[in-house]
Structures are given as structure tokens and as C-alpha cells.
């Protein structure tokens, strides 16, 4: 049963949604990783009462089609070739139940891979035949929530959080704060000490100097400095108002870091 908090979070999330359609009629359900792809898919399943086939398609053309009815996922109808193969192939047109550990494992693996590459996600809906017998009701949203370890109505991560998530494979270290509170950090101690000092001791004086120099400078900004060749690479300060992160990365990651920033800040 949903608590009052669950309902309030759901209403807040629904009220912030604006519908966007692609040429061809697919409805965009996640843009730039917001909401999280698995969150977006769960919400679609939760809103599907009639027997339908929902085809989820990512910007990289990977797709997963599922048969859904009564807010339950009956099974996987189809997959794009890049996701197909191995145990995942056994999923197609098979009714999924909580008792089939082998298929559930393959399904979890499939969705994890699909979500990783699904930066932008759209959905199309069409009539479908039932998968399995009437006794096989399919997986409820709460079961899928457990299997995927996703909170369907969790608020979206902050802009800085999205940026760090997208660029994390390329980072040597980072420290993230929101106001005075440290939200997360990763990296070796020496690097973290340097980044801590940037965030706690120098970010304010930098912001003040920048404000004097460029009063029109946006609050959402990424400042980077370092040695391109040799040395210890780049140090950067990502800012969005009171949300900040100090990060360190190697010079060859520069393009990827700026690309991740462009998507998060845009």
C-alpha cells in the first residue's frame, strides 16, 4: 500500500512532466537520463491497464518490447539485435514469473544493459496478445522495483549528480557537496584532500572574483585548469548554485567530461 509520502512524491513527479513526441509518434519518457531510464519504464508499466505491447527505444536504437496488462509485465516480446543473444534470447515471448530464477536473472541483466545505454528513451504503445496463460499474471511493479533496485518515484538527481554519474568512468576522484553538506566522494586520499581544499577553502573566493569580473556569468558553470601534458592532469569545479563538485581527471578525458557537462547543463 502506498503511504502519503509515496503519493505526494508521485504527484510532484507527475506535475513536473511535460510530454514530448518524436516524429513517428513515440513519446519521450526520459531525456538526458532524467528520469532514470528504469524509473521511466516502471512508470509506464504502472500506468498501463489494458493489454498492450510497449516498445521502449533508446537514442542509440536499442529497444525492448514488453507485453503489459493490469500494471503487470507479462514478458518480453522482442529485442533489438544489439541486446539479443545468450540467455537473453530465451526471454522472448516467454511468460515471466517470480519463480523462474534463470529467466529473471536474464531479464535483470537485459534491462541493466539497456538502461546503461539509454540516454534518451521513448515509448510506443500498441495492442498485444496475452503472453502465457491466465494463471501467469506477470510481474507487478513492486516486484520489478525490487528486481531492478529502483525507487520509481525518487526525485531526479541534481544537475551536478547527473554530470558526475555520466562522467564517473573518466574521473580519478571527485567530492560533491550540496550547501555545506558532503554528498559523496570517490578517489585516493591525496587527491581528495586537494579537492576538499578547493571546495571548502577556495571555491567561495573564486566565485566572488568571478562575480566581480563577469557579473553576468551563469550560476551553472564548469571551470577547469591543469597541465595538458604530463603532470597530474586537470582539476575542475562544477557549480550549480549551492550544489558543487570538485573533480580530477586525466587530460585525455577532457572531451568526454565537457560532453557530459554539456548534456547535464543544457
Amino acid at each position, binding site marked *: 500500500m502506498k503511504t502519503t509520502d509515496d503519493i505526494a512524491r508521485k504527484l510532484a513527479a507527475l506535475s513536473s512532466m511535460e510530454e514530448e513526441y518524436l516524429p513517428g509518434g513515440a513519446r519521450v519518457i526520459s531525456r538526458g537520463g532524467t528520469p532514470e531510464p528504469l524509473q521511466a519504464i516502471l512508470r509506464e508499466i504502472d500506468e498501463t491497464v489494458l493489454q498492450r505491447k510497449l516498445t521502449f527505444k533508446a537514442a542509440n536504437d536499442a529497444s525492448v518490447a514488453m507485453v503489459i496488462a493490469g500494471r503487470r509485465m507479462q514478458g518480453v516480446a522482442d529485442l533489438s539485435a544489439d541486446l539479443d543473444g545468450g540467455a537473453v534470447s530465451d526471454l522472448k515471448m516467454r511468460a515471466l514469473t517470480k519463480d523462474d530464477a534463470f529467466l529473471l536473472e536474464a531479464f535483470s541483466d537485459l534491462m541493466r544493459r539497456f538502461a546503461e545505454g539509454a540516454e534518451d528513451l521513448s515509448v510506443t504503445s500498441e495492442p498485444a496478445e496475452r503472453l502465457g496463460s491466465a494463471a501467469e499474471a506477470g510481474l507487478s511493479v513492486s516486484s520489478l522495483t525490487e528486481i531492478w533496485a529502483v525507487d520509481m518515484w525518487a526525485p531526479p538527481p541534481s544537475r551536478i549528480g547527473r554530470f558526475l554519474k555520466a562522467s564517473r568512468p573518466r574521473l580519478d576522484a571527485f567530492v560533491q557537496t550540496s550547501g555545506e553538506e558532503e554528498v559523496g566522494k570517490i578517489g585516493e586520499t591525496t587527491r581528495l584532500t586537494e579537492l576538499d581544499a578547493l571546495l571548502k577553502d577556495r571555491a567561495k573566493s573564486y566565485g566572488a572574483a568571478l562575480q566581480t569580473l563577469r557579473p553576468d556569468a551563469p550560476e551553472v558553470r564548469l571551470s577547469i585548469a591543469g597541465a595538458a601534458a604530463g603532470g597530474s592532469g586537470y582539476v575542475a569545479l562544477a557549480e550549480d548554485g549551492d550544489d558543487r563538485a570538485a573533480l580530477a581527471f586525466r587530460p585525455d578525458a577532457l572531451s568526454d567530461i*565537457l560532453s557530459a557537462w554539456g548534456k547535464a547543463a543544457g
Partner: protein
Amino acid sequence: MSLSDELDSLRASFAACETVAFADLSSRMVLVTSSERTLRQEALDALCEEAGLLFEGPKGGDPIFSSEDGADTAIFATHDGVDVFLRAASEPTDVLCCRCGADIDVAAFVTEARAQLEKISGGTES
């Protein structure tokens, strides 16, 4: 090729590059510019000051982005543009200050601009 031609050539190679300025960081003064539109001196001075802030910190203050090796590249990115600053290896007071659109290929631009800067900086020494 004159210094001005070198800067024009760099800007012409990258459609998203709007302004390139060669400056002296010790005096924080822009010496030569190439820009697709006329920029007021205040804007050029601010660009040069921005380079100083990123490389050396606020005037009279400590460096913001401390680096034991000495920073030679700095970038300021927002949703609507990317400022790129490069410091010459041979003469660290020689800097290139560039204002680019958000769609600039930063890695390619930095490589090309650095080669130009080292050429220019080497030329000013002789």
C-alpha cells in the same frame, strides 16, 4: 605570416571559435585579437582577467586550481559557450584567450591552438 594572420588562421579553422586574443598575463593586457565581431576593450580585458583568475587566482590571492606542475590549460564552460585559455610552455606569461561556442570540438581546438601559441610565443622571443 603576421601575428594577426596566425590568429585569423586559427579562428578560421574552427567555425565555433568566435574570438582569439594573444595576451600578456603579467600585465593582464591583450596585445592582438582576431574576432568575428568587434569586441569592446572592456570585454577583451575581462577575457584576459578570466585567464589570470583561472591560472593564478584572484589578484593578490592564492591560486584557485593549485597544480604543482603549473597549469597550462584552463577552460570555463557554461550552457552557451566555452572559454579556452592556454599558457605557452616557453614563456608562461604568453597566453591565448579564446571564446568559442558550446559546440566547439575542445580537444581538437586545444591541440591546434597550442601549436599556434607555441609558434607565436617562440616568434616573439626572437
